């Protein structure tokens, strides 16, 4: 394995050296980018302002929020001119650094009746921005969502190819599915830091949308900087970069739901910086569900009734606070911080609505100190370094000790068995260290190299106090992962290319009991290591103006988790032969995006994906309650998907929609049956060629919004937005089996939502009202778990962006 890896590295290194030397000769011209935001006196974004490089025709128009970016500017000292009818023209000087994206911060414009002699430039920090263009990526601009009460997760769920799978209301189990991949196959990042072990109380379902500037959803190849073993994509939350701001909001709504959020940043002139996000969420989640009422005496299932959920309350509290310096000669950014969060979640249902619980509670808490450092042009021009480290102490407590059986009316009867689902009073403790380093070097105007190394080590212990003799109590499990990646980027006006090589290394260990009940009974440490090489490339090509064609290919893999490899150390058998999950992903897409002279913008894009995935890590075929089944590499799946979207926006309205179709089929001709009761060896796979069940395969989103300025008050904006999402019906089991009338299906669903927002004092105050599930339709997810019906919410927000 190692020899093979060495060989890979040698080959790639050789190719890189040859290419670099050949390109260096002719290319001496060096370019960079400028980005920023044009704002009014109160910090509100100004739409359709022209930003031009003096003496050239190069420039850009600002978008609805005032943002602009001008690419490929020759390095050196330039003058920017900012022009808009009704405002005084502005000019400012900027030093363009080759290979960098220089931020001007907010450029404040004054209406023509006021005179101002100097242009104010705020937060002039050079922030390197990754060029993501070659990836299959959806960028969710969160500034559009600051006035919305929808959770961050659900905003991401509106992207094509992405589904949020949730069990219920606020705080319920949720997962993301990207092109059919989900669970451990999709990874989450916060500013590039893997969120694997930040705990469930600090996750996309609880974090406030106001803390994020944007969310990048990668649907195939991941950038080298996100060193991780994701199989099917990743989600990176990029926190807000405003140097000085305060954003405070409170929302309340149906089901006694309350959310408070305060996000802010303070940066002093000498570079001291403090940034924080604080949030608190509460909901009773007592929405109505349509369920059968079981007579607790006879066990008879009565007719369907609409009843309120009665034990589903959720509360969470958390902060992410960072303190440090920015813009120092020795550090562009050096921040120490802490993530602290806690949540308490009552669990109302099991896998289906038939399993109703009244006293199961899950409590999560995490303390994660963080350290971030970054510096551009460190030691030599064009070399940048970013480092971060985290330590996490994350705990989960799960309590299920009642000897009761509940029905949907909240009635209960005493039972002879403690534990409504399974007797548990357990605590799971995780301690994790993480260190990620990224070094990148811009070699020439057209080429750069990036190297990344991500290391994490996790120690887990669990204890079930309800079953004190459980032999797995306090058994230590360890998982160490190291992912190294090397990427090479070539940039030209007409095309750019990224090629990368990754090496995944994993070491895990646990303790196992041997020779139980003999004199020789003992615990022994067992461990295992795995190594795997992945590679890929992404190409973007601009055949004509406004048209972009992207293509990427990756050999991706996900390493086994410690549980999967060693079982629970006792009953679940270990399988140290477990291979990583692998997937060969191919994406090709085309996009058209055009900004018209009057500031209107039209974008159309379409993508096709093809994936061959195999060796999924799943619990072995377990047809009885066989206690000793191990995890196994099962299954082979072929995915073909298409997605497409259109969006049109102008100063007054926007309209758009997207459709995703993904055909995910079982591609295994035979099933390997091991460690089960029903024979072993290879058997015919009855479901070969059939679509995988329980995954939505056809879904669409639509949006329409209008925007009126100066309604009622001066400097105010009124917005009306309508969104709809549609999911075609899908089966809970393989579609070809069983008579049609007995098939368990999740019916077709359409969710309409409406939002009204009013912002005045140039964005300082806003109030928004929303109605989700306007038609009170029955909405479902995983195994027909019911989601909330019509609900209302109101959000009050105060925002100030200090100059």
């Amino acid at each position: 394995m190692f020899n093979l890896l060495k060989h890979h590295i040698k080959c790639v290194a050789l190719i890189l050296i040859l290419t670099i030397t050949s390109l260096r000769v002719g290319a001496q011209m060096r370019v960079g980018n400028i980005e920023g935001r044009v704002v009014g006196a109160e910090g509100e974004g100004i739409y359709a302002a022209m930003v031009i490089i003096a003496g050239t025709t190069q420039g850009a128009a600002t978008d609805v929020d005032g943002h602009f970016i001008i690419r490929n500017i020759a390095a050196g000292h330039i003058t920017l001119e900012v022009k808009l009818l009704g405002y005084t023209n502005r000019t400012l000087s900027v030093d363009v650094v080759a290979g960098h994206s220089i931020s001007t911060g907010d450029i404040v414009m004054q209406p023509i009746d006021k005179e101002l002699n100097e242009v104010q430039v705020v937060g002039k920090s050079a922030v390197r921005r990754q060029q993501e263009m070659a990836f299959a990526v959806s960028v969710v601009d969160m500034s559009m969502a600051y006035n919305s009460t929808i959770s961050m997760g659900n905003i991401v769920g509106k992207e094509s190819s992405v589904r949020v799978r949730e069990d219920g209301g606020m705080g319920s189990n949720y997962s993301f599915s990207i092109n059919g991949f989900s669970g451990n196959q999709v990874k989450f990042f916060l500013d590039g830091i893997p969120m694997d072990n930040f705990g469930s109380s600090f996750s996309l379902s609880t974090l406030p949308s106001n803390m994020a500037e944007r969310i990048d959803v990668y649907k195939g190849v991941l950038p080298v900087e996100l060193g991780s073993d994701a199989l099917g994509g990743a989600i990176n939350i990029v926190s807000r970069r405003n140097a000085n701001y305060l954003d405070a909001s409170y929302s309340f709504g149906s089901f006694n739901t309350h959310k408070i959020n305060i996000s802010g940043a303070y940066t002093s002139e000498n570079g001291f910086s403090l940034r924080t996000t604080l949030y608190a969420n509460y909901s009773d989640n007592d929405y109505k569900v349509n369920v059968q009422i079981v007579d607790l005496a006879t066990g008879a299932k009565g007719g369907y009734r609409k009843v309120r959920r009665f034990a589903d309350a959720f509360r969470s509290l958390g902060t992410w606070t960072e303190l440090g310096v920015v813009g120092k000669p020795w550090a562009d950014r050096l921040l120490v911080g802490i993530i602290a969060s806690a949540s308490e979640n009552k669990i109302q249902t099991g896998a289906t609505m038939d399993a109703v619980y009244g006293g199961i509670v899950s409590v999560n808490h995490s303390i994660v100190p963080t350290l971030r450092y970054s510096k551009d042009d460190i030691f030599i021009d064009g070399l940048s370094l970013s480092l971060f480290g985290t330590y996490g102490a994350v705990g989960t407590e799960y309590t299920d000790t009642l000897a009761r059986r509940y029905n949907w009316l909240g009635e209960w009867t005493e039972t002879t068995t403690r534990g409504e689902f399974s007797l548990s009073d357990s605590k799971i403790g995780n301690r994790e260290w993480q260190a990620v380093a990224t070094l990148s070097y811009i070699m020439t105007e057209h080429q750069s190299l990036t190297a990344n190394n991500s290391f994490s080590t996790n120690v887990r212990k669990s204890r079930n106090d309800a079953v004190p003799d459980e032999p797995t109590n306090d058994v230590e499990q360890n998982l160490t992962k190291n992912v190294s990646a090397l990427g090479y980027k070539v940039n030209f006006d007409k095309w750019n290319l990224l090629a990368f090589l990754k090496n995944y290394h994993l070491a895990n260990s646990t303790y196992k009991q041997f020779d139980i009940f003999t004199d020789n009974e003992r615990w022994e440490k067992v461990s295992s290591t795995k190594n795997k090489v992945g590679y890929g490339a992404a190409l973007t090509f601009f055949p004509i103006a406004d048209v972009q064609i992207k293509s990427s290919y990756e050999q991706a893999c996900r390493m086994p988790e410690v549980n999967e490899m060693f079982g629970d150390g006792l009953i679940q058998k270990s399988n140290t032969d477990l291979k990583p999950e692998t997937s060969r992903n191919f994406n090709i897409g085309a996009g058209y995006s055009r900004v018209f002279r009057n500031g209107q913008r039209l974008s159309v894009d379409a993508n096709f994906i093809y994936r061959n995935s195999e060796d999924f890590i799943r619990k072995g075929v377990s047809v009885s309650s066989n206690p000793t089944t191990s995890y196994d590499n099962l299954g082979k799946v072929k995915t073909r998907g298409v997605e497409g979207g259109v969006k049109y926006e102008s100063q007054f309205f926007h309209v758009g929609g997207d459709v995703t179709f993904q055909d995910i089929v079982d591609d295994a001709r035979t099933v390997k049956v091991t460690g089960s009761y029903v024979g072993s060896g290879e058997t015919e796979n009855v479901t070969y060629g059939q679509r995988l069940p329980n995954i939505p395969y056809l879904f669409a989103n639509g949006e329409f919004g209008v925007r009126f300025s100066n309604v009622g008050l001066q400097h105010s904006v009124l917005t009306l937005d309508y969104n709809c999402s549609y999911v075609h019906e899908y089966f809970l089991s393989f579609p070809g089996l069983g008579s049609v009338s007995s098939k368990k299906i999740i019916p077709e669903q359409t969710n309409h939502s409406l939002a009204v927002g009013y912002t005045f004092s140039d964005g300082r105050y806003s109030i928004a009202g929303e109605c989700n599930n306007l038609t009170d339709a029955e909405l479902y997810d995983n195994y027909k778990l019911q989601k909330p019906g019509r609900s209302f919410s109101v959000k009050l927000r105060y925002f100030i962006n200090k100059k």
Partner: protein
Amino acid sequence: MKKNLFWLAGLCAMPFFITSCDDDNGTTTYSNSSSYVLSLGVTGTDGVTVYYVVSTDSLTSGTISANGNGIEQTGYHDYQKGGNTIFCIGGMGVTECTGIVRADDGNLEENGSFVFTNSLSGLTQIDDNTMLGVEIPANAEAGDKFTFYTIDANTLEITDKNTSVSVSPLSDLDWPSLTGFEYSNGYVYLSYCPMNSSTFDTNYTDNGYVAVFSYPELKLVNHIVDSRTGNIGSWNAYNGFMKDEQGDLYLLSNSNIVNGYSQTTKGASFTRIKSGATDVDEDYFFDFSEVTNGMSPSHVIYCGNGIAYAEVCTLNAEQQAEHRWSDTGLKGMIVDLYNKTAVEVEGIPIHDGDGGRRFAALYDNGYVYFRIGTSEGNYLYQVDVKNATAIRGAKVSATFVAGFFAL
């Protein structure tokens, strides 16, 4: 441009118009009018098993599959017949009992369902109208009382629940794992093996244990400890008892490691409890190991007149130790319980069983039918009980067979 906008607006509005009626999920019928019913377990590449209850008229030729037919049931399921109803027990997150009957028109239909308080450990038929179920808590920490359910077999409703019977003395050595549950002539018999509920180890295999309860009082009248045999039956295989035409119970003891035991301390044997008795018949002992030179039945099905078909494990204890829980190395034998003889069946390859599940086999009109996984796929085998011969029958397009009935 205007035209484009129109088109865009149309696209957005599309979800409004793509609507259809929900399927009616009422009572459903299935167009088949044959006399055999199989539950096919299909485990997909997603690792999830779904069950399809299908009807067929031929067990000897063709392919039995769930393609476009069969009643779909999700979640772990176990099947038992009582009267003319197939009781389908299981579900996702709850233990439900759904009845399947053959309607007047010959089609299978679901005729009702109810929910157990927690789970179900065993179910037996008392008479044409009554079934009795029992639940044992998963471990000592979870509880120390049985729950007995009296079920109306016609309306599928729990008519009585008894939660007062203590699990002790069954739990005195270790936690009892039910291996057989049978009613006969006024008594309910429960066989079990003492098994550690965390490690699943069995350290008390020197005796056969059967609890005898009076019915309908459900009072423990005797706790049989029979030192002639090892534990009766094996884990989750419901193979502890066979009842003959006189109501006599024949008890199987195997303590096979391939069926979940962690040790074997006694050979395989059959013993008897006479109809209406509360203790074993000391005069009857069938030393199966001795008769067969050390073999041990893993699963049995009663065929009438004291004859049973047995799936017999050909591995010795040492070989079994390497394959705990695997239910492997099986061949077929015809066992004469009255005359204490056993004859090997010709024509059955060495195969793996359904251990850890109830033996999904059918005795019908002189023949025993069950599934064997072969390198060419899953096939039913038809055993001629009288002549001790077998032939390969219909192909089964499924991962395994979970239930097998004539209905």
